[in-house]
Every structure is written in C-alpha cells, then in structure tokens.
C-alpha cells in the first residue's frame, strides 16, 4: 500500500485529502507544520509527500521542501497552495517539487498528481537498483590511506564544476570515482552519461558525441541526440579518453571550450552545460609528449587529476573488498553467504591482482558460484587462481611478465620495499627493520629503484605533465650554448588535496623524510596539491627528462629547423622543415636545407625521417653539384626510454676539414660579417649507418659505418657585410677518394648545467678507421703512390669545470687528436692546433704576409689555401672566470630586445686564460720543427659574446691579438 504524508497547517485540508486518499487505498499520515513533517519523514519515509506552501513558523513550505530535498532526495514532493504566485511555483519546482497543485484542490488533480509522483518514485528506485547493480552508487570500498585520500579529493572536487581526469590501471574503479563525484555534486539529480571513447568507431565519434540530424549522412534515418545533449546539466564521463583519435580530440576540445555543440548535419548551435570527467589507463602526459594526445585538451581535462592506486598498493582493502563482493553475490543470488577461512583470505591478500578490483570481483564471483556452501578454503582460491600453488608475489611477477631477470628482480625488490614502507607508514627506519637491513642500505636501494618514502606513504597517484614543443633552435651563425635544453618532463604525482587557503597536511614534507620534514614552510599556503609519486617516476628533475639523443655522425648531424610546419595524424606527424644548415661559409654562402619531415611515435618506438634538399646561395642557385646537395636521414629510437637508436643517412654536403675548435655558427658569423672563414671545406657524398646507446643521462655511445666519397671543392664568392670586395682565401685541394669509414664515439657529460657549467666533466672521445682502395693524393701528401689508404685516428676532448667560490670558476680543457696506426692520414683528417686559418683564441699560427698557414708544414710549403698538416696535436687550455655582477643584467623591459616571451639576460664574466699547444708531423720525409706554442690573455664574456685580447708567450715579438667570440671558449 503506497504511503502518503500530508503536511499542511489547515486541519480541514489534512482531513479531506486524507479521507480521499484513504478511500483510494493509500496509507495516509499527516503533519500540521514543517517540523512535524520532517520528523514524520525521519520516522518512516513515505512514498509521496503533499506539502503546503504557505505555512506559519520558521519552516514554511519552501524551507520544508529544502530540508526534505537535503535529507530524502528520492522522496517526491507535491506542493499545494491557494495564494501562491507563479514565481513561488517556479521556485518550488526548481527546488525539486514534482508537481504544484492549486487550492481549492480537486480530487482528480490530487489523484493524478499522486499517481505520477508514485510512478516517479518507482522509476527512481529502479534506477537506483540498476546503478547499484552496476556498482555506480558512488560508494568506494576501502579504508586504506590511499583510498581515504581519494575519497577526500572526491569530496573536495565534487561540489565544484572543475573538470577531473581520473587515471589508474584497468580495473581500479575509475568509473566509480566519476560516479562518486557526480553523486556528491549538485548535479546528482541530473544525468550521468558515460561514453566509452574506445568503443566508438572513428567515423561515428562526432555523431555519438554531438548527435546528428535526420538525413545528414547515409544511415541517419532519424535525428539522434548526442551524449553531450543527453548529459546537459549533468555529468559526462568520457572513459578511455586516451583512445580518442586526434580528430575527435579537436572536436571534443571545441565543445568543451565553447560549451556548445552542433549536431552533425545541423546548423543550430546548442548550448550544453556539462561537467566533464575523463578517465584513462594510459599515461596521457606521455601521449602528449608523443604527439598522440592534444596538449591543449590535456590541460583542459586535467584540471584536477585523481590517480587511483592499484589494488596491490591498497593493503588491507583487499579483505574489505572480498567481503563487499561476497555480500553483493549474496544479495544478487539465492546462494548462501560466503564464509572465508583465514587461510583463504591470506592467499587472496597475497595475490598481486594485476586486474585490480575488477579481477577481485570476478574471482569472488567465481568462488561464489563454485562453492557449494560452507567455508571458502585455500583450495577453493587456488582452484580459480592456479598461480597460488607456488604462490608468492615474486613468482607471480616472473610468471606474468616477459621482463628480464634484472627487471623482474627490481620489481620484486620494489614490491617488498613498498610493502614494508606501507606497513611502516612511510618510515624508512621502520621499513628497514622489517626488511632486516640497515637504513642506509634501504636508502640506497630506494634511490636505485626510484622510490621515496612519501611516495609510498601517500599512495593516491596523480599525474600532471606539461610538455611543449622543442624550443631548441639553431641559427645561421650563433650556436646556442645548450641545444639540449628540454621543456619536456613527466611527473607523476600523488596525494591529497586541499582547498585554496588551507594548509596541506602530510604533503609538504620532502621525499627524504628522515632528513627533512619541514611542514612549516611557505609552500603550504594557498595550495591545492596532489603529491606523492609512482615507482617509476623520474624524480631527478622536473625539467631534466631528455628527448632521445640524436646520434652523432661526424658533421652530418640532425639539424634543427628554423621553420617547422607539422601536421599530426594520430601517431604520424607530417611536416615541412626549413633550416640554414647551421653555417655560412665561403663555399656555400648560406646553404638552405628544406624538405619534408615525418615522425612516427608510439610507446616503444620513435621514427624520425627527413629528406632535405640543399640550395646554396654562393652566387648561384643551381641545383646540381656543387651548387646543390641533399641531406636525408632516418632514425629509429627504441625502448621505453628510447635510449637505443639506429639510423641511416645519405647525403651530399659540404663539410669542414676541422670542426673541433670552432663551432659552425661562430665561424659562420665571422664569414658573413667580416669576410673571415677560418675553416677549409670539402665535399662529402655517401651513406652512413649509425647506432647509438644512451647508457644513462650522462653517457652516450655511438658507432657508425659509412661509404663516403670525398672530393675537393672550390671556394666561391659569397656576399659578406664587410670587406665584400676582398678576395677569399682559396679552398685547399684535398685527397680525393672513396672511403669506408668506421667510427666509435663516447660522450660523458656530468656537468651540473649544460648552458653555464660550474662543475663537472665533459668528455667526447672517438676513434675512426678509414680505408680507401684509391686516393688521389695532393702535393701536400708525402705518399704519391701507392694510392691505397688505411688509417686509424683518435680524438679526445676533455673538459673539467670547477667552482672556487660563488662567483669564481677555474676551468680546464685538454684536446688530444691524431694518427694511431696505418698509412698517413688523408688531408681531410689532419689536424692543427690553431685551425687552418688564423683562428682567434688559438693564435699559434700567424699570417705571414698574404699567407695564412703554418701548421705542421715546412716553411717552403706555406701558400694560400694550404691545409693543416699535423698528424697529432695537443692543446691545453686553462681559464679563470669571475662574475662581474652579483645579478645578471636584465634586458627584459627593453622592447627593442624583447622577443616573444623572453628577452636576453647578460651575466658578464671577466676571463683570464692560458693556452698551450703543439703539433707534430710523423713523416720522416718532411720533418716538422715541432715546438710548443702558448699565449695568455684576458677578456669579458657577456654570455651573448665575448671580447678578448691575447698575447703570445712563445713568440714575444708578436703583437697582441684582439678578437671576439660568440660562444664560450669551452
């Protein structure tokens, strides 16, 4: 019998309506005012309430209605009034009244309204049952610290309209979180619409999301309302958002930003008020980095990140969940309630649950079905999870993965430490005791595994990552001090959240909680925080995660474009690149490299390909050699961190003979401005294969093999700013031939800062083996015939940076290079200690009249265009730097200098330096009078450029030399 509660201060109304409804078979109660009504509902909730709008006292009809809605949301309330205005009716309806009856009441109207209200009540109950059946009640089971923090985040974000991005492994309950947020929000009575983005065919995404008009496309036989419209005023849950195609992401972004949609085939703009909650089990920040997920959409969705912990990190929640799902099974079926033995629970608790809560629910259901009653025994558990026969977490990991032994052992170790820390509430000392080891050892292990104490103790995972395009750029003449400065980082973060103005509890301690636990810092104000970390997080630096390192391949390196037009299609990026080719020189003038680019990016693989043509501006724009060239390459980066790469290049380029002592951009600016090209050039054509291995962030190994044809090339007559009418120094004739080149190279970089290193090592060492069956030797060579050449040479550039005090540094460099074995080096592989020309800063060779070279060559051979001839060289450099100002000069507010967001700061440093070098010829036929050459000098380095003066020590008669360098000396 349906029950009705009549709340009205007029006794006659209560009596008359009560009589009517009793006659109709309703169970009727009444109350004379709001307070009594509330008490009656609290005592026994009726199916429908009839409520008078105008009642005396503090609890009038509206106030009573408000209280009912707060306490009993599913109770339908029918309002009654004899003097109410339209606005009262509207207000009551807005507050949730299902109907409004005007007095005097007619029996038909009352019965009709009651019938509708009861129908609504039934619908709500059915809906609730269905939602409960689907587990979407918003109730989260679990009392672990991690889940408490998730619940806290939900409670804080639910009342807002902020977008939420829920992350976590499959089966952790992301939809439950979304449902819980919806249930606790002001939209709880509005639709909760779920969209599984992974399940929508690509072509139907727009129709599914935004609906379509009849006839808008083949098959659109009816007008269809999209999910956005369905979710209007409610919550739209976008599950598996990471599987949405790039095209669909763009449309979704538009809808979210504009808050309006258009149906497919329609021309009407429809406003939608939707709270978007998205979920994914993918690392969206990485997807952004990889280019498979739009960065702007990521930012829009990731306003509040909530990362759900995997079940294996939730401690005793497993037991609670087992009982919860057992109860559910009992309620849903006629089977007897499962009773669990302690041993069975222990086995369940020891499982790693790779499928998380969903797996646990399935297992409980299977056991419920298989169990004929009575107590669940360990054998029952083992029957549905066979791995329990030899159960431990480690064997589970080993059995389930294809990982290497070391990775597996690491994971086992990580799990053990995690567990110990969890049980120790994050105390490393306590965890060490549990693991029967000492604390320093545990710290070392945690450091190696990338674990931190707070990482464990707070286990609600969240992720926020910001990525950006590659901000590196190279130019015509000036090489940036650090081309590897990256903007990209990925920082999974974990923890609790608090509202603006609150102090964060348990969050502002640092990872090394045993040494610092400062909760009294300024960081704890005005903070919403989602702290903690995940085991594989890179905790070294938010800005230090590197892109794959480009392989090193002589001078045919990857060239960053001046202009890059890129269009992204899913994992594919097609583009067009344009670059200066890094240099301006007397052979090419400005070489313009341009052509199509392609990038393929997935989780384990990154492929980059470029096909650049080269046009040279040195008085000619013809495409054929030597006026044109090409530089194509394809590289594949492999592995989770993309630390291994293989690549191939085929090219016809102009290459410098020596590149160790002056950068291309620096030489270029000198050439372009001053008509001074300090290098010699030759043409290189061929194909090279390269393999690289980035051992860690500090070491890179590279090996390459190439088939190359080297040939002499004439200097041309490019335009220069100053002294344009002067003749150029001729380019020397080199040893032409076809060579097979094998190289091995190692870079070790421990500098604290690549831009302005203050401490650390930089070592670049390499070995090259070359073979050619036929070389056309020049007159500079000692060997005219035979023409077969086999040689080996090695180079080592060793730099050490030391800080003496906050403003003083002393840095040193040692360069060693030369012949190791085999025949005499071809001219392209010879060295000088000062470069082929009169190189400032390494001023060991002075121009003699119009002649410009004297490196390892007999005096009689000195001639225009003579190449460097040393077989071995050694150069040592020492410098002392002192910052001249305590703060860098800020040119920020100078509009003439500011470009884009940044401008330039200069931090002048005084420099005192000392250089010493020596070159050797090894040939007996042309002995070189080897002797040490040295100079010293001083200068000011402004960062953008440095002005120096040097004086020879070994030849005191030489006049001081003044010069400008646009990069650091080393």
């Amino acid at each position, binding site marked *: 019998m349906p029950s009705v509660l009549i709340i009205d201060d007029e006794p006659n109304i209560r009596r008359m309506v009560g009589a009517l409804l009793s006659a109709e078979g309703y169970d009727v109660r009444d109350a004379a005012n709001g307070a009594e009504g509330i008490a009656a509902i609290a005592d026994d909730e009726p199916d429908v309430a009839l409520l008078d709008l105008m009642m005396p006292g503090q609890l009038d009809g509206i106030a009573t209605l408000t209280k009912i809605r707060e306490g009993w949301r599913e109770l339908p309330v029918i309002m009654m009034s004899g003097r109410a205005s339209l606005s009262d009716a509207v207000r009551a309806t807005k507050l949730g009244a299902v109907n409004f009856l005007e007095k005097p009441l007619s029996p038909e109207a009352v019965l009709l309204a009651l019938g509708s209200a009861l129908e609504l009540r039934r619908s709500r109950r059915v809906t609730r049952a269905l939602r409960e059946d689907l587990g979407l009640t918003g109730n989260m089971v679990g009392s672990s610290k991690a889940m408490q923090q998730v619940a806290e985040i939900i409670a804080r974000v639910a009342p807002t309209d902020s977008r939420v991005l829920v992350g976590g492994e499959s089966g952790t309950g992301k939809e439950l979180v979304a449902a819980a947020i919806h249930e606790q929000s002001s939209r709880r009575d509005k639709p909760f619409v779920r969209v599984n983005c992974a399940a929508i065919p690509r072509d139907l995404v727009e129709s599914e999301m935004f609906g379509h008009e009849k006839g808008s496309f083949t098959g659109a036989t009816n007008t269809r309302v999209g999910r956005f419209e369905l979710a209007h005023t409610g919550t739209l849950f976008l599950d598996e958002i990471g599987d949405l195609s790039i095209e669909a992401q763009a449309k979704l972004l538009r809808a979210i*930003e504009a808050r309006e949609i258009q149906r497919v085939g329609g021309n009407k703009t429809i406003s939608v008020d939707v709270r978007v909650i998205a979920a994914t089990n993918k690392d969206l920040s990485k997807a952004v980095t990889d280019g498979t997920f739009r960065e702007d959409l990521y*930012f829009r969705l990731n306003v509040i990140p909530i990362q759900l912990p995997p079940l294996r990190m939730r401690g005793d929640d497993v037991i609670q969940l087992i009982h919860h799902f057992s109860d559910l099974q009992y309620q849903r079926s006629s089977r007897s309630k499962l009773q669990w033995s302690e041993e069975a629970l222990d086995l369940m608790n020891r499982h790693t649950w790779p499928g998380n809560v969903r797996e646990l629910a399935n297992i409980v259901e299977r056991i419920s079905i298989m169990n004929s009653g009575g107590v669940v025994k360990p054998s029952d558990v083992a029957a549905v999870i066979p791995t329990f026969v030899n159960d431990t977490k480690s064997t589970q990991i080993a059995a389930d993965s294809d990982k290497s032994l070391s990775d597996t052992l690491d994971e086992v170790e990580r799990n053990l430490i995690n567990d110990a820390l969890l049980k120790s509430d994050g105390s490393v000392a306590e965890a060490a005791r549990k693991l029967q080891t000492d604390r320093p050892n545990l710290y070392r292990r945690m450091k190696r595994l990338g674990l931190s104490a*707070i990482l464990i103790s707070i286990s609600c995972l969240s992720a*926020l990552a*910001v990525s*950006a*395009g590659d*901000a590196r*750029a*190279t*130019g015509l003449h*000036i090489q*940036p*001090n650090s081309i590897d*400065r990256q903007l990209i*980082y990925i*920082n999974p973060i*974990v*923890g609790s959240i608090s509202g603006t103005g609150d102090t964060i509890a348990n*969050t502002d301690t640092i990872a090394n909680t045993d*040494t*610092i636990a*400062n909760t009294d810092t*300024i*960081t704890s104000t*005005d*903070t*919403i925080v989602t*702290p*903690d*970390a995940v085991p594989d*997080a890179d*905790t070294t*630096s*938010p800005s*230090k995660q590197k892109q794959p390192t480009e392989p090193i391949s002589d001078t045919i390196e990857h060239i960053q474009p*001046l*202009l*890059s*037009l*890129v*269009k992204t299609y899913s994992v594919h990026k097609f583009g067009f690149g344009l670059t*200066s080719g890094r240099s301006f020189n007397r052979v090419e003038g400005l070489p313009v490299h341009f052509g199509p680019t392609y990038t393929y990016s997935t989780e384990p693989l990154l492929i980059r390909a470029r096909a650049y043509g080269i046009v040279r501006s040195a008085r000619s724009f013809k495409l054929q050699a030597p006026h044109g060239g090409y530089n194509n390459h394809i590289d594949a980066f492999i592995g989770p961190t993309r630390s291994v790469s293989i690549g191939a290049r085929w090219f016809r380029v102009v290459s410098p003979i020596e590149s160790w002592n002056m950068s291309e951009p620096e030489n270029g600016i000198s050439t372009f401005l001053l008509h001074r090209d300090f290098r010699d050039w030759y043409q290189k054509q061929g194909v090279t294969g390269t393999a690289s291995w980035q051992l860690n962030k500090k070491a890179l190994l590279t090996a390459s093999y190439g088939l190359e044809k080297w040939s002499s090339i004439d200097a041309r007559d490019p335009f220069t700013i100053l002294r344009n009418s002067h003749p150029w120094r001729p380019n020397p004739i080199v040893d032409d031939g076809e060579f097979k080149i094998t190289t091995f190279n190692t870079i070790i970089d421990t500098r*604290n800062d690549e831009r302005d290193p203050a*401490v650390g090592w930089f070592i670049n060492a390499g070995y090259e083996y070359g073979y050619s069956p036929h070389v056309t030797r020049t007159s500079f060579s000692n060997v005219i015939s035979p023409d077969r050449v086999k040689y080996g040479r090695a180079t080592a550039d060793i730099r050490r940076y030391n*800080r003496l*005090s*906050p*403003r003083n540094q002393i840095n040193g460099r040692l360069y060693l290079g030369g012949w190791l074995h085999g025949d005499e080096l071809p001219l392209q592989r010879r060295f000088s200690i000062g470069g082929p020309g009169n190189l400032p800063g390494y001023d060991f060779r002075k121009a003699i009249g119009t002649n410009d070279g004297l490196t390892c060559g007999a005096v009689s051979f000195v001639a225009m265009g003579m190449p460097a001839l040393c077989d071995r060289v050694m150069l040592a450099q020492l410098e002392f730097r002192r910052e001249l100002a*305590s703060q*860098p000069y*800020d040119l920020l507010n100078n509009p003439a200098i*500011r*470009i*884009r*967001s*940044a*401008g*330039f700061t200069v931090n002048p440093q005084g420099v005192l330096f000392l250089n010493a070098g020596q070159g050797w010829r090894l040939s007996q036929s042309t002995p070189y009078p080897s002797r040490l050459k040295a100079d010293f000098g001083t200068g000011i380095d402004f*960062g953008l450029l440095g002005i120096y003066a040097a004086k020879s020590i070994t030849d005191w008669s030489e006049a001081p030399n003044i010069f400008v360098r646009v990069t650091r000396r080393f």
Partner: protein
Amino acid sequence: MVGSLAAQNARLQVTLPAREKLSIDTPQVRAIGMVSAKSTAELIRNGFPARLQFRLELWSAKNVVNEIRSTVLWDVIVEYDALKAVYRVVRVTPDKAFVLGEFKDIEGAEAKVAEAYKPQIKPPRKGEKSYYSVSLDVEAMSMSDLDEVGRWIKGELKPAVRGKKNPGTAVTKGLRRFVVKVLGGERLRYQDNSKVFTP
C-alpha cells in the same frame, strides 16, 4: 603591492634562514617580476603557458674547489584558463605538483610567483662552510609553427592578422621570432648566490 611588484625589474633572490637554523632550515627563493611584463603576460593570455625553471644548489666551500652537496629543481608554470578566465599558477617538483592558486589577473599570478618559497633541499652539516646558488630560466612553451600560424589566422593570438591592429605587427612578430631562432633561441636566465656561511 601587486602593482609595485609588477613594476619592478625582474630579479631572483636567495635568502638564508636565520643563523641558528642554518643547519636545519632551508633558504627562501624569490623570483620577482617574471611574468607580468607586457609581452609575457600577452603570451600567457593567448594560451602559451610560461615556465620558470628553478635550480637550487647547495655548495660546499670548505675546499679550494667547491663541491655541489645537493640540488633541487622545480618549475613554476603560469597558464591562462580561457574557460574560467583565470590565471593558474602551478609549482611542479619532481614528485609533486601544487596549484598555488587561480587569479583573475596577471598581477595576482605575478604576486603568487613572487612569494618566497622554501625548496626542500638538504641543509649543510654543522660546521661545513657552504652557500646556496639559485638559477632560473624563463621560457615560454612553444608549439608547432603551423599551429601558431593557424592561431594567428584565426585571431586567437594578438596582435592578429585580422584584428584591429596593424597587420604589420603580426609580420614584425614573425620576423622577430625568426631572428630569435637565427640567433639560437631566447635566453632569459637569472641567478643569485647566497653569502658563504658556516652553520
């Protein structure tokens, strides 16, 4: 207060804790006037988040050659949420991210960025002669040139080609950007050192 902050020249400061707390407390770092300059604010307003990349190093000065004892890095990101029309300031440390607040104007964000912050760096041992060194790189996140051109055309970036302003300004901006790339990229770096101290 906010206005005065914005008007100041950009600078970075590291301040030591009280003398008696040198071995247990961490220094304060302040970055003043970093984001409210007109063009920076304009870029942020147009959807380019600005990133301030901090590096604090603790150096030991007890030997002739100083040694780094510990390093901590963190970023501060200032972004504009066009939907909520607020500037959001986020601090990102290696394993955490803090939303420091949302502000209606860039000056509010600037004031938040300029607040003193105590990075969680391990202080020096007692008796060890030390000093702190802090550096800051300011960079605007870039996007594909094509995306940017597209946004120029759509008028999302100001000065826009089709906006009320002189179209030449957009060209000038493009040329400036080209020049920046030719010159090797922007460079906006600040640094400061504390006094040498012995806790």
